[in-house]
């Protein structure tokens, strides 16, 4: 115990000493633990590594810059965060450096220098007066008991008294060493596997982030990393079926780097399996590894699944994502806005863009995604019902006008049954985050949207309408009245076709005095409905339906659904309805490739950590002392002890030891009972504040 000497000799306050004192201080350590915990929260609340424009949208340009400066979009890679982690590692190392010698010494040293006074101050202490035994015999009894309890001891004769100093559970100290060494090891290993190397290269100007959207072969050398350029990386690549790549992309902040691999991965097939319920059951990529140098002409075949990566030459390849690899789609564009009825056939590929001409100028059709399955909650299920239905294939696309404004659509290929009737469904939205609002096109007898679309086209065909209305106007009225009525009907249909029911009510509001508004609106709507019905019947007739006999509930329901859909059309926002008529799916598999040199180091750290923690918690370093002297012709025996952990268990052990001795030596002196209270506490009551003398070395 050199604490005393340390107090007497004033230490020289060299810089090194001050630094050690600072880094090794417990207060700093605890502060660091809390600070890291709090700092880590940031990255969980703010989604990390999103595209930068998203952040601009979220925070506005000013705060965007501030947060970027603070590195908040990649907190765990930010210099300051890594700095605090490094601080913790340094602090723990210093702590280890300072504690280890004392602990090792503590493990091997029996403390035979003790004052009887301090022994009597121990929580666990018992005292005997033994008139009929000499110290030698008493000591023999004590050491017997110590042996039974697994202690090792050393006896020292101080002349007027003797001390037997015993201890066990020395390895508890190793627990401390293991645990804290593990923190350092894991920390260092983790830093090795992090982005540190990239940062270093970036900082030295050896590499530059690429922020443009380029094909892999066009990426300039400054943004390319050769195999082995960094010891650890984690990158992704999306491979369409049939394609191969010998590189992955490393995403970093608002850009990326291309990491070349020492081999090529070819995706032969990507498969998704489903449960009977329609939920995905497995994602699997069949790949081939091409590596002429190590494999020759015989590529390595393997299947990679979620939870079952492939490791090849220190690179682990994971199934991490999937998508579309350019499925070929056949589409039919049905005009919605004019009198034209014939659809246009289009062929395209997911990921591609097509130029179209709309009535209001050129449009770009961007085919974004194709899905074979759409497992969605039942439309009429209560929330939480967990009933799902497969809605079949769908295509997602954007229509971008000349000004660059885009509207997004999601069209299902097959009709969907809702409330007993069948519809083609198409969702539209003008902003990415919004919910889709759906257009429900009723399905005709031939399972096609055609009847509805012809109905719609007829509404917009003025010559045809005029002709029809003239033929069907009520006979017997004056020609003037017929002309006026037809004009009204034509106008109403026109208004409805352009703006739905809302346009009709607006118009009524504009031309009718307020007191008669309700009445007039109702009248207008009636006329409109009748007219629409007439048009509809004509459309059926054109289909060669026998309208005199064959109009029933089905047609009526169709008519009602069609009118609802027509009323919604003005908000649909595209001049045509795009029907998916055929596809040839090409899937793509997202693979992640990682190469990490630090893994072994970190895993070793894990092993240390667990071992250390268990040793520390579930063993304890216990010391016992027997102090013996001859006083007034009798032998005095003072037995005391302390453990650095697990006080209850130690109290129990001490009690056992005391009882064992009491059986041989007689009962201890009552005054020496540890807590001389009226009613002794149960031995398994917690013993707090037991201060083992060796704690002072900390």
């Amino acid at each position, binding site marked *: 115990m050199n604490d005393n000497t340390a107090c007497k000799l004033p230490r020289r306050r060299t810089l090194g000493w001050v630094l050690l004192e600072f880094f090794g201080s*417990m207060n700093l*350590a605890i502060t660091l*633990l809390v600070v890291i915990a709090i700092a880590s*929260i940031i*990255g969980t609340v703010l989604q990390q590594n999103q595209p930068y424009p998203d952040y601009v949208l979220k925070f506005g340009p000013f705060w965007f810059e501030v947060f970027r400066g603070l590195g908040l979009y990649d907190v765990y890679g930010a210099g300051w965060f890594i700095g605090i982690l490094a601080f913790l590692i340094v602090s723990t190392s210093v702590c280890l450096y300072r504690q280890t010698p004392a602990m090792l010494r503590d493990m091997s040293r029996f403390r035979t220098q003790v004052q009887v006074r301090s022994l009597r101050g121990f929580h666990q202490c018992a005292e005997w007066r033994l008139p009929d035994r000499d110290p030698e015999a008493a000591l023999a009894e004590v050491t017997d008991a110590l042996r039974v309890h697994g202690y090792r001891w050393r006896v020292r004769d101080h002349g007027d008294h003797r001390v037997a100093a015993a201890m066990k559970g020395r390895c508890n100290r190793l627990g401390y060493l293991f645990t804290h060494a593990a923190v350092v090891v894991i920390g260092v290993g983790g830093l090795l596997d992090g982005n540190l190397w990239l940062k270093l290269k970036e900082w030295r100007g050896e590499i530059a982030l690429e922020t443009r959207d380029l094909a892999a072969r066009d990426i300039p050398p400054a943004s390319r990393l050769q195999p082995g350029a960094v010891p650890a990386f*984690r990158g992704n690549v999306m491979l369409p079926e049939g394609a191969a790549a010998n590189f992955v992309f490393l995403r970093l902040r608002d850009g990326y780097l291309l990491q070349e691999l020492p081999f090529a991965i070819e995706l032969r097939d990507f498969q998704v399996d489903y*449960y009977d319920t329609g939920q*995905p059951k497995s994602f699997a990529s069949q790949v081939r590894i091409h590596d002429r140098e190590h494999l020759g002409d015989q590529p390595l075949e393997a299947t990679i699944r979620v939870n079952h990566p492939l490791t090849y030459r220190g690179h682990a390849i994971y199934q991490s994502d999937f998508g579309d690899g350019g499925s070929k789609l056949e589409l039919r564009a049905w005009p919605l806005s004019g009198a034209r009825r014939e659809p246009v056939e289009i062929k395209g590929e997911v990921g591609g863009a097509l130029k179209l001409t709309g009535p209001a100028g050129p449009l770009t059709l961007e085919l974004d995604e194709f899905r074979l399955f759409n497992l969605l909650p039942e439309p009429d299920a209560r929330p939480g019902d967990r009933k799902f239905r497969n809605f079949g294939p769908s295509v997602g696309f954007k229509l971008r006008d000349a000004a660059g404004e885009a509207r997004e659509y999601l069209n299902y290929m097959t009709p969907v049954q809702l409330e007993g009737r069948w519809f083609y469904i198409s969702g539209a939205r003008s902003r990415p985050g919004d919910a889709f609002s759906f257009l429900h096109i009723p399905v005709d007898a031939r399972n096609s949207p055609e009847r509805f679309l012809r109905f719609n086209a007829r509404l917009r065909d003025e010559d045809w309408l005029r002709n029809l209305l003239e033929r069907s106007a009520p006979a017997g009225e004056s020609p003037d009245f017929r002309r006026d009525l037809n004009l009204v009907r034509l106008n109403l249909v026109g208004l409805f076709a352009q703006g739905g029911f809302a346009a009709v009510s607006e118009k009524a509001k504009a031309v009718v005095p307020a007191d008669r508004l309700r009445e007039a609106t109702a009248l207008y709507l009636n006329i409109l409905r009748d007219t629409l019905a007439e048009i509809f019947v004509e459309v059926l007739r054109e289909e060669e339906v026998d309208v005199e006999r064959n109009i029933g509930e089905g047609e009526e329901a169709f008519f009602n659904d069609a009118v609802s859909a027509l009323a919604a059309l003005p908000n649909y926002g595209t001049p045509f309805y795009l029907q998916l008529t055929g596809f040839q799916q090409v899937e793509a598999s997202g693979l992640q490739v990682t190469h990490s040199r630090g893994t072994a180091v970190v895993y070793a750290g894990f092993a240390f950590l667990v071992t250390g923690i268990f040793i520390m*918690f579930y063993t304890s370093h216990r010391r016992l002392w027997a102090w013996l002297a001859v006083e007034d012709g009798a032998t005095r025996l003072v037995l005391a002890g302390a453990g650095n952990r697990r006080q209850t268990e130690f109290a129990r052990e001490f009690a056992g030891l005391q009882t064992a001795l009491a059986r041989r030596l007689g009962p201890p002196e009552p005054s020496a009972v540890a807590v001389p209270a009226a009613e002794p506490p149960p031995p398994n009551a917690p013993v707090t504040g037991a201060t083992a003398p060796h704690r002072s070395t900390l």
Partner: protein
Amino acid sequence: MAVTREAMLEQWEHLSRRPGPMVRDVLWGLLVAAGSGYAWLLYRPYMDGYEVAIQIGGTLALIAWGLYWKPARLFTLAVTTLTVLALWRYGADFELRKSDFLLKYFLESQAAFMWMSLLYVLATATYFAALFGRSEFAGATATALTWSATVMGLTGLLVRWRESYLLGADIGHIPVSNLYEVFILFALITALLYLFYEDRYRTRAMGGFVLLIISAAVGFLLWYTFDRQAHHIQPLIPALQSYWMKIHVPANFIGYGAFALAAMLGVAYLSRARAETRRPHGLLARALPPLELLDEVMYKAIALGFAAFTIATILGALWAAEAWGGYWSWDPKETWALIVWLNYAAWLHLRLTKGWRGAPMAWWAVIGLFVTLFAFLGVNMFLSGLHSYGSL
């Protein structure tokens, strides 16, 4: 409740001399080994090398558990008997759960969970009645209720495991795969930890407080069942189809359970400390468990939780390395696990190296529960990430 020192010492001596327990220990070991061997004979064709190794390890662990803590034996026997009974009633027909009387009202997993819920709530009330009424009998009843609830809960989980296979061979999986299932696990583990400390410290005074958090979990579970229909067995998404799940999740919940227990003891500590200063001779100050006891058990629970949580996080890292391509991705769930871990590391250091005790540590343990709760629930509810399958 408190045993005198003499009595305790006597018992101590007894334990070391009496041969009776030895025989029972051997019997216990043989019984478990025999049961495990029988299961092995039945399922041998379906098991691979790992699974055999796991079964051997599990058998030894179960034997050790029963040797270390005697009440675990009766518990294991009760759970096994009920589970086997349920499996026998089921045979291979899942639909029997609606018609077989025993299954429908007692052993079908959903029924078992309802029994568990009821018994835990009753136990909570009974513990408080025992505490304030100073009734030994009520206390013993509360303990029995808690044990029964735990038996029902674990039986329910095991039966549910089987039920998932009855639903479809490819659907079957261990019931620790979603929030609903792990909430039951949480209640069970917290209760078992509590029962352990109750037994070791020979006091029932802490029961009401600990059972409060279990009742809260039960309340959540009922809401989740009836409002959200979360109790249906769902097939496993590919990300969860891994052996690691079977050990990672339970290890985590030993941690969560221990931290929750510590926090509730913190609440008891603060209540008593407050009562002692306000009305030192009032009922509260006398009836609540002694401060020193609370302080010690709180420490033990946090230490155990910390050890379990360390293992769980490491297992999670090993799993992540296999499933996501890296042992650490700073995914919100991972990060919050780290936050919880650092928080309790700080707590332990303050106690051990700075010698802090008492109210501040109790407060910290209570706050720790909120941190833990966020890691376990909040992340799923509010944050997105790779762990997002566990959402409400």
